[in-house]
C-alpha cells in the first residue's frame, strides 16, 4: 500500500508540461495554416469573399446611388433612419452603415495583405502564383479606391497585421499616397494577371479588370492621357464588346462579353446566396422621382427598374426570381464593364481635345445600343462642358444602380450643383430624395465612423462639417 501511495505521489508531482499545451481542435489557426498551395488558394478565396461584403446590395449602393440623384430610400420615416440618412444628407458619424462599410473594407484589405505576405514562401505553380498576387492586389486597390472616394484620406495598410493594438495610433494617410498605392497595385496586377481565364476560373480578376480600373482611377485623378492609354489597352485586347442585349448583362445565367469584372452571389445551402428580400427588391434603394422623370422614355428603363409597381421603382439589376430553398438568390454585381471603358475614353478625349469625333463615336457606341436611331452629332454640342454633360447623362442611365453615379458627380465637380437642384424631397418630379435637404461642400466626403475614431483614441480625425 505504502509503495502504491508513494508512486502516486511521485507521478502527481512530475506531471508533464504537455498536459497544458493544447491546440484548437475545431479550428485551424494562423500557426498551422498558410503552408501549402491549397491553403493559399483558400486565403485568396477569402479575399474575394471580403470584396463581396462591401459591394453587395445594401452596402456600397448607399454611398454611390442612394446619396445621388439616381435613387432614394423609399423606407424613409419622418425621423429618417440609418439607410435613409444617406439619401437625405442627414448623416452623423454614429451611423452604423458607415462603419460596416469601413470595417468590411479593411477586413478585405487585411486578407489581401496576408496573401501577399505569405505567398512567396509557398511552393506552387509560378504562373498561378503570379496571377493570385495580381488578383488580391486588384481587390486591395479596388477596396482602397472606394475608401478614398468616400472618405478622402484613409489609413493605408499594406502589411499583414501582427499587433492590432499598434493601430490605435494609426492616422489617416493623405489621399494622394493612397492613390499612389492603388496605382502601384493595379500596375503590378496588370503585369501579373492573365488576359483570360477558363470557365472553371470564371469570376477571377483578369488583366482587363486591372487596366480598366486604372483608367477609372486616372479619370478621378484627371490624368486623361493615362485614361486613354489604359482604355486603349482594354479596347485593343479585343476581349470585350458591347452586349447587344442590355438586360442580359445582369442575367446571372448569361456570360456577357461586356462584363470585365463582377462579384457573384451564388444561392444554395452554403450561405453564399444573396438573401431573398421581402418582395425580392430593396426598398432602401429605389429609383428617385427625378431619375424616373428624366428617363421615362429610355428603352433601358425596364432593365433597370421594375416599372410595374407604380410609385415604387425597385432596382432590377440584382434581381432574380429563382429563389433557392435557403431563401437566397443568385446575383452578380457588375463592377466594371466595356461600356464604361468606352465612355471613360470618350470623356478623356473630350477633356484633352474638344471637339473630338472619336469621343463622339465612343459615346454613340453606347448610346445607339439603347437608341439605335438617335445617334448624337458633333453639331449637337456647343461646348466641351455640354459634351461632358451628355456623357454624364449617358453614364447616369447606362450605369444606374451600378454604384458609379455619386462618384461621377463628385469627380466632375458637379455634385453640389446637381444635387442642390433636386433637394425638395418627397414626390416632386425632380426630387432626388425622400425628404428635403441642404447640401454643402462638406457633404462630398462622408463622416469617418465614430466607432473608428473612438477605437483610435481620437487619432483618426473627423472630416470637416461632421
Amino acid at each position, binding site marked *: 500500500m505504502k509503495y502504491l501511495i508513494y508512486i502516486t505521489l511521485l507521478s502527481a508531482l512530475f506531471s508533464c508540461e504537455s498536459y497544458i499545451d493544447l491546440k484548437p481542435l475545431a479550428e485551424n489557426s494562423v500557426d498551422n495554416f498558410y503552408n501549402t498551395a491549397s491553403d493559399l488558394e483558400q486565403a485568396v478565396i477569402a479575399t474575394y469573399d471580403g470584396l463581396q461584403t462591401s459591394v453587395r446590395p445594401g452596402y456600397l449602393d448607399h454611398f454611390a446611388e442612394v446619396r445621388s440623384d439616381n435613387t432614394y430610400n423609399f423606407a424613409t420615416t419622418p425621423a429618417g433612419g440609418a439607410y435613409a440618412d444617406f439619401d437625405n444628407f442627414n448623416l452623423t458619424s*454614429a451611423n452604423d452603415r458607415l462603419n460596416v462599410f469601413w470595417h468590411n473594407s479593411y477586413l478585405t484589405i*487585411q486578407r489581401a495583405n496576408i496573401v501577399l505576405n505569405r505567398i512567396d514562401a509557398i511552393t506552387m505553380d509560378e504562373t498561378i502564383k503570379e496571377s493570385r498576387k495580381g488578383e488580391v492586389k486588384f481587390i486591395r486597390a479596388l477596396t482602397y479606391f472606394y475608401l478614398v472616394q468616400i472618405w478622402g484620406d484613409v489609413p493605408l495598410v499594406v502589411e499583414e497585421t501582427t499587433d492590432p493594438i499598434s*493601430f490605435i495610433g494609426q492616422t489617416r494617410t493623405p489621399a494622394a499616397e493612397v492613390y499612389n498605392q492603388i496605382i502601384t497595385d493595379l500596375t503590378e496586377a496588370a503585369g501579373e494577371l492573365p488576359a483570360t481565364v477558363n470557365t472553371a476560373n470564371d469570376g477571377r480578376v483578369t488583366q482587363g479588370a486591372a487596366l480598366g480600373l486604372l483608367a477609372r482611377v486616372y479619370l478621378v485623378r484627371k490624368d486623361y492621357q493615362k485614361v486613354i492609354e489604359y482604355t486603349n489597352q482594354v479596347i485593343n485586347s479585343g476581349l470585350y464588346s458591347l452586349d447587344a442585349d442590355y438586360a442580359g448583362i445582369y442575367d446571372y445565367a448569361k456570360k456577357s462579353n461586356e462584363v470585365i469584372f463582377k462579384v457573384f452571389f451564388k444561392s444554395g445551402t452554403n450561405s453564399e446566396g444573396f438573401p431573398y428580400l421581402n418582395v425580392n427588391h430593396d426598398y432602401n434603394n429605389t429609383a428617385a422621382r427625378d431619375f424616373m422623370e428624366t428617363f421615362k422614355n429610355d428603352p433601358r428603363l425596364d432593365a433597370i427598374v421594375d416599372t410595374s409597381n407604380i410609385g415604387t421603382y425597385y432596382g432590377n439589376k440584382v434581381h432574380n426570381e429563382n429563389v433557392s430553398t435557403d431563401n437566397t438568390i443568385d446575383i452578380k454585381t457588375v463592377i466594371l464593364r466595356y461600356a464604361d471603358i468606352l465612355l471613360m475614353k470618350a470623356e478623356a478625349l473630350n477633356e484633352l481635345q474638344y471637339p473630338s469625333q472619336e469621343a463622339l463615336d465612343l459615346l454613340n457606341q453606347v448610346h445607339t445600343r439603347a437608341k439605335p436611331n438617335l445617334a448624337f452629332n458633333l453639331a449637337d454640342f456647343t461646348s466641351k462642358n455640354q459634351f461632358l454633360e451628355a456623357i454624364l447623362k449617358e453614364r447616369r442611365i447606362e450605369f444606374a444602380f451600378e454604384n458609379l453615379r455619386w462618384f461621377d458627380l463628385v469627380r466632375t465637380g458637379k455634385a453640389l450643383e446637381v444635387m442642390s437642384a433636386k433637394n425638395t424631397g418627397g414626390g416632386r418630379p425632380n426630387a432626388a430624395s425622400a425628404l428635403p435637404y441642404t447640401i454643402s461642400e462638406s457633404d462630398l466626403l462622408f463622416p469617418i465612423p465614430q466607432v473608428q475614431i473612438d477605437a483610435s483614441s481620437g487619432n483618426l480625425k473627423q472630416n470637416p462639417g461632421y
Partner: protein
Amino acid sequence: MRKNYLKSGTKTLQIALLSWVASVCLAEELLASPVNEKEVKAIETKSKFYFGSLVPGTPKSSGQTQIVFAQPKWYTATTNRIVSRPITGRVTSEAGEPLIGVTVVVKGTTTGATTDATGGFALEVPDNGGTLVFSYIGFVAKEVILGNFTTLQVTMATDAKALEEVVVVGYGTESKKNIINSVASIDSKELENRPVVNFQQSLAGKVPGVTIAQSNGAPGGGMTISVRGVGSITGGTQPLYVIDGLPLSAGGDQGNDNFNYSLNPLNSINPSDIESIQILKDAAATAIYGSRGSNGVVIITTKKGALGEKPTISFNAYGGVAQLAKKVEVMNAYEHANYTKLARDLSWISKNPARNKASDPLNLRNIDDRYPAYMIPYINGEAELTDTDWQDEFYRTGKVQNYDLSVSGGTAKTRYFISANYLDQKGIIPNSGIEKTGIRLNLDSELSDKLRIGINLNPSYIDNNLARSEKNWGDEGLVIGTLMQHPELPVYNEDGSYAVDKLFQTLWSGESNVVQFQNPVALANLVDNRLTQFRTTFNGNVEYDILNNLTFKTAFGADINYYERTYYRPKSLSYRTEPAPTTFFNYGSVFNSNSANILWDNTLTYTGSINNEHNLNLVVGSSMQKEVNKDATAEGRNFATDNVRTINTAQERYSSQDEREWSLLSYFGRASYNYLGKYLITTTVRADGSSRFGSNTKWGVFPSVSLGWRVSDEAFFKNNFVNDLKLRASYGLTGNNDIPYYGSIALLSTGGKYPIGDMVQAGLYPSTAPNPNLSWEKTKTIDAGFDFTFLKNYTFTADYYYSHKTDLLLNVPVPSASGYSTSLQNIGELQNQGIELAISTDQKVGPGDLSVNLNFSANRNKVLALGPGQEQIISSGGLSGSHVTRIGQPVGSFFGYKVIGKFESADQLAATAKLGNQKVGDFIYQDTNNDKVVNADDRVILGDNYPDFQMGLNLSYKIKSFDFSASVYTQQGLQVINTMHRYLAEAWGNNLSVYLDDDAPRPVWGVGSATHTRASSWQIEDASFIRMREIILGYSLPNTLTSKVHISRLRIYASLLNPFIWTKYSGYNPEVSSNYGSALTPGEEFGNYPVSKTSTIGINVSF
C-alpha cells in the same frame, strides 16, 4: 449537525457489534504479547480505535473530543464477575425539552444506551456504583455518579464551544474558531424546502458581499451572482463552484441561440442534499484555488451519514402555484387604436404638410401611413369591442411539486447518505418548465485504521421545456411579443382554435404596416423548445495515514455532462415572411453536447502540536484537471409533415460540429500556525499552468497570507461583555482564468467562401488576433475584519476589503484598419472596495427561540484603466450605445442623452440646440458640453446597475410546535435600463401606457426610428427595491403523537416565495439583466422571463 435518533431498541445489537469489532481489534494485539496495563494503553494510542456512535456525524479530523473506547478495566472485567441492576431516566435540555439520541455510557465500560424520542433511556449498570457519562452534540458532556439511583432526571447544558464548527476550506478543513479569512457559511436549514430549482436562489440576501440577482424567472434559468462586486470586464464573473472537492466548470454551450438566458449548470444539484455552503470571499481564502479564485469560491458539501447511526429515513414533499408577480402597463384596445391613428396621421401629414390632412382616406396613403381597418370601430368609440389583455391571456398559473427521499446512517466504520429527488416545475409562460430527477450516494468507509475511502456519486436527469422569452419581437421573443400584440385582436377564434396570422395578413394584404408577431399563445404552445441534460458527478478518494499526523489523500473526480437541445417550429405556423405551410421557417434543430471534466488531486496533510501551544497544519498538493467539450448540431428545414420532427425528414439539412478542451496543472500548499489559538497565521501558495494562457505566460503563482489575533484571550482584555473577539487581516493574489479557450491563438474562420467558376470554394481567414502574452486576470485583495461574540449569543462580523484587479482581459476595440475590430489583451484595471457587516443572534424570546441575521454590504466599483489611450468602451445592449465602461466610473454604466423635457413649440424648437432634424414634440436632449450643438458628444453617464448598498434580514422563530421564518432583502440606489421602450413606443405594436402621459414625446410612426429610441435618461429607471423573499410557517406534530407511528418528526408548512416587492420600477423585475454574464451591459430589461410569486405547502417526515 444531524441529530442521531437512535432508539433504545437497537442498542443491544449495536453495542454487541461494536464490542465484537473492538475485541477483535484488541485481541489481535493482545494475543501477540503478554498483557499488562501499560502495554494495553500503548496499543490504544497506536491503533486509535474510535467509538464512532458516541460522536455521530463528526468527521475524525474535526478536532472533537474522541472517546477512546478501551480502558484498562476492559480485560480485568473479564476476570471479575459483575453484578448489575437496571436504571431508567430521562434527559432534557435546560428548557425542559426532551433530548433525543443522547449517548449514555457507564464510565469505563462499553455498557451504554441512547435516549429515545421522549429523552428516556434504560440500561443495566454495575451494582457496585460507578459513573454515567452523558454526551450529546452541542451540549456539555455530563457525568453523574450513580449511587443508589434507579431513576435519573438529567438536564444537559448547551455547549458554547459547539460553535466551534468545522469550516470546509480548499483542500481541507479548519475550525471555524480559527478562521482568519472572510468566509460565509450557510447551512442546510436555509436551503431545504424552498420551491427553487437551484440552491443559489435560496442564498439571495443571506450573505453580505454576495449579490445574487433573480435576473430571470425561467424555471431552471441562470442567476447573476457576484462576490464583492463585478470581478471582471469581459472575463468570467461567476465564482468557482467546488462540490465535495470537485471544481465544476460553470459554463458550457447549450445549443444554438434560441434564447438569451443561460441555463444554470448547477441545476443538477439538489438543494436538499446540501449540508453546508461556504463562500470564500477574500483573496487569502481563495488563493488556494489560484487562477480560478478571484471571483470568490463557493464550496458545497453534501450530506453524509454518521458512524454508528441507525438509518434515518426522511421524506419531504411540497407543492405550490406560481403567478406573474407584476404586470407591465400597456395601452388597452381603445387607447391603442386612437394612438395608432394619431401616429399614422402625423406621419402622413409630415410627408407633405401642405397637402396631406389627417382626414385623408387610408387608400390614398402608403401602407406605412395606414392603420388597420379593425381599429376603426374603436376609433369611432363603439362599445363592448374585443379588448384583450394579452398578459392575462398569455401568462398562466405555474405549478411546482417536489419530492425528496433520503436514507442516512452508518455502521461502525461506514457511513452513508442516499437520496432521491424529483421536481416538476411548470413556469408561468405556457409550455415552459423543468423536470428534475436526481440520485445521490455518499459513502465513506474505514478500510483499516490507516486507510479510508469515500465516494460521492450524483447522477441527475433534467428535462427543461424552454421558452424563447428574452428575444426581441423579430426573433419571436415571447415577452416583448406579448406586450406588442394588438389588444383589438382575440386570442382564440370562435371555434376555440388559435387566432393566428391576423397581424401578418394585415401587412401582407397591404392594409397596414403593423408588428409582424404571431399570436404568442399559439407560438409558445406550438413550438417545441427543450433541453435535456444527463449529468453525473463522481468523486472518489482514498486517504492513508502515513504517520500518525501525516495523511496522504488522492482524489479522483469526474463531471460528465450530456445535453440534448431540440427545437422545432411547425409547418402549420406562419412566419412573418412566409405563410403556412412554411418551408424555410419550418425549422428544426438538434444539438448534442457532451463534456467530461476529469480531476485528479493529491494532498499531503500534516497536523502537529507542541504541548498544545504551537499548533501547525500543513497541506501540500498537486492537481490536474482537464475538460473536453464536444458538440454537434443538425438543422433541418422544410419537413415532410409536423407529425415526424426528426431532422432526417427535412428537405434541407445542415450540420456542424465543435470540439474544445482546456487543462490546468497545479501545485499548491498551505501552512497554518497558531500559538495557543491566540496568534494565528496562514499562508498559501498555488502555481497554476493553464492551456488557456499564451505560450509566453503558461504559469502563474498565487500567494496569500492571513494574520489573526484573538484579543479576547489576552489577560488584559478579559471582561464580561465580550466573549470572543478576533481581529484579522489578509492579503492575497488570485487569478481569473475564465478566458477564451484559445484566446491566445489567431483562429481561422471558414466563413470566407466565394463562388469561382459557378462553384462555391472554401476560404479561410483569421477571425481572432493572436496574443502569445495572454494570461490570467490578476486580483490583489486586502481584507481586514473582526469576528466578535458578545453577551453570549450575539455575533458581529465586519470586513473591509479593497481589491485591485489588473491585467483584465479586454477585447480592446482596435481600428478596423488593423483587419480586426478587437484584440484580446490583458490590459484593464479596476477596483472594488467595500464593507460587509453581519450581526446575528440566537436566543430565547419568551417561550420560543429567535434567530435573527441582519447583513449589510456596500461595494464601490471603479474602472482604473482600459486599453492604451482608451478612455471608455461604449457597448450596446438592446439599444445602441446604451452602456459605457469609462475610467473612473463603474463597469458598464448607463450612457446616453439626458432628456430635459420636450419641444413644446416651433419657437422653442428653433431657439434650442437639437439633435438632427428633431421636431416639436420630440425630447429636448441636454447640450451637456454647451457647444450649442447636440450630438454624440453630449451623451453622459446616466446611472448604473450597482446598488449603493444591499441589506438582508433573515429571521426565524420557533415556539413550541410552530416555526416561522422570513427573509427580506433590499438593494438601493441602482438603475435599470428599460429597453422595452425600443419597440413599445411606435404605434406599430401595442405601446407602453406611459406614452399617453403628458410628458411623453409625440407619437412617431417609424420602425427603428431613432426619435424615441436613442438611449437616453427616458429609459433609465430607479430600480431600488425591497423584496420579501420568503415567508415560511411550519407546524411539527408533537412527538408523543408521532412516535406512536414510529415517526420521529412530522412537520407541515406553508411558504410564500417572492410574495411582495416594493419598487418604483415599471418593468417586470428590478433585478433584471438581459445580457447574462456581460459586465459591459448589465441591468437591461428586454423581454426577460418575468419572476413569479409562488405559494407552496409541504410536509417533512422522518422515520
